[in-house]
């Protein structure tokens, strides 16, 4: 092969290798070689010497770096594919675990770690395979789809989960129903009832006040306990002037106690028949609402904001890496031509 064309092709291969698939690289190099040889032969037939014809053909074809950049713009690169796969895998992970595993009643700890590894590994393996066999355009579209699904799926589930369960677990709805069913049945039969300002014995344990949220699953259930249908149900003890229910989420009301001054004094809703210990805090500054908000925000951040940042970062990183690779590779042929 003619030496200048050979040098050009070697430099071009160095710029493209690792960025495009091997079969694509082979096609690009073969097509470029064919073109340059035709062009050089054409120029030689017009009276140029072989070396001058080659150099003129290369000049007509353009700089290696420019050609490599233009080629990479139209061809899916491995770096882009791999980083996008990693980004979307990380994005999909919390969505999958929260939407499928947690909603089915699998606690986060300790099994969560194992499931996370399994699911994450599966996502990354499938994504890596996809990255090497598909086009970046499709991958980007699928990544955006995963992000959208991630956002849509995790938000309601995160809110619901935080409201009815301990922070790191989401029991199944039917489990909660089962836990409360004896009490609800009593309510329906009229065995349990409440009166203004007084707890029935069933709601006291060793003199400790128990919030009515223990037996309330929904607003309908609350109404069974409250003839007035009001938010202000009881005045159980001095210093705890009223009890309100919190409306997060719609099917699992919780309660909180307030002083008449408005200060929240009790947020200890420990153990709903050992199935749902929601808030163990006795810190008067914390409210149920703040707990809901805080937990929901953390999960939302975990599943959407983090994923978005990762995917965006992967795209930017890919862009920077591909440009840096081309800048760092100096072409001796280019210097020779100059």
């Amino acid at each position, binding site marked *: 092969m003619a030496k200048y064309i050979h040098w050009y092709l070697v430099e071009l291969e160095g710029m493209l290798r690792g960025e495009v698939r091997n079969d694509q690289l082979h096609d690009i190099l*073969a097509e470029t070689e064919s073109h340059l040889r035709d062009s050089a032969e054409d120029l030689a037939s017009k009276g140029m010497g072989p070396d001058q014809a080659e150099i003129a053909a290369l000049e007509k074809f353009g700089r290696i770096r420019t*050609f490599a950049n233009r*080629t990479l713009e139209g061809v899916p690169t491995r770096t882009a594919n791999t980083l996008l796969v990693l980004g979307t895998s990380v994005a999909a992970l919390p969505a999958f675990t929260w939407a499928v595993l947690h909603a089915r009643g699998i606690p986060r700890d300790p099994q969560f770690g194992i499931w996370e590894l399994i699911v994450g590994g599966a996502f990354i393996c499938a994504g890596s395979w996809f990255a090497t066999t598909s*086009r970046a355009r499709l991958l980007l579209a699928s990544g955006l789809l995963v992000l959208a699904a991630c956002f849509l799926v995790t938000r309601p589930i995160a809110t619901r989960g935080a409201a009815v369960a301990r922070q790191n677990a989401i029991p199944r709805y039917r489990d909660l129903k089962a836990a409360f069913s004896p009490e609800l049945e009593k309510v329906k039969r009229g065995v349990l009832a409440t009166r203004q300002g007084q707890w029935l014995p069933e709601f006291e344990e060793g003199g400790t006040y128990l919030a009515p949220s223990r037996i309330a699953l929904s607003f309908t259930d609350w109404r069974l306990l409250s003839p007035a249908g009001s938010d202000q149900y009881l005045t159980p003890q001095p210093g705890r002037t009223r009890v309100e229910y919190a409306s997060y989420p719609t099917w699992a009301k919780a309660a909180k106690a307030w002083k008449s001054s408005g200060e929240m004094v009790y947020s200890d809703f420990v153990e709903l028949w050992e199935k749902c210990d929601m808030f163990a805090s006795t810190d008067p500054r914390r409210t149920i609402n703040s707990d809901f908000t805080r937990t929901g925000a953390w999960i939302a951040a975990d599943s959407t904001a983090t994923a978005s940042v990762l995917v965006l970062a992967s795209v930017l990183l890919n862009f920077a890496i591909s440009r840096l690779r081309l800048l760092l590779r100096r072409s001796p042929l280019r210097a020779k031509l100059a």
Partner: protein
Amino acid sequence: MAFKGDLEALILGVLQDRSAHGYEIAKRISSRTDKLVSVGEGQLYPALHKMEQRALIAAEWVPQEGKPARKVYQITPAGTEELARHRSMWERLSSGIASILSATALEEAKKHG
């Protein structure tokens, strides 16, 4: 209205007659425009690859004796439709420009008497 995708239109126009490899496409564009239009050869292949991805053209490798195989491109039915769209747009654009230029020329001729 702007005439966009001119390189794409030129490639499709050249390929509508018969299939060709990259170097031949570049030469035919130059010769058919009396060298008024010359395509940067390094720009040609990325454009060809994008058009191939969009299924406007199809390509196959043709082996040659004693030389590297050539990738020969041919226009597809989708490419023919795209070419018709380009042609329509170009005709509208050129007629619009021609009407302006001819009117200007007429006014100038009147001014100068």
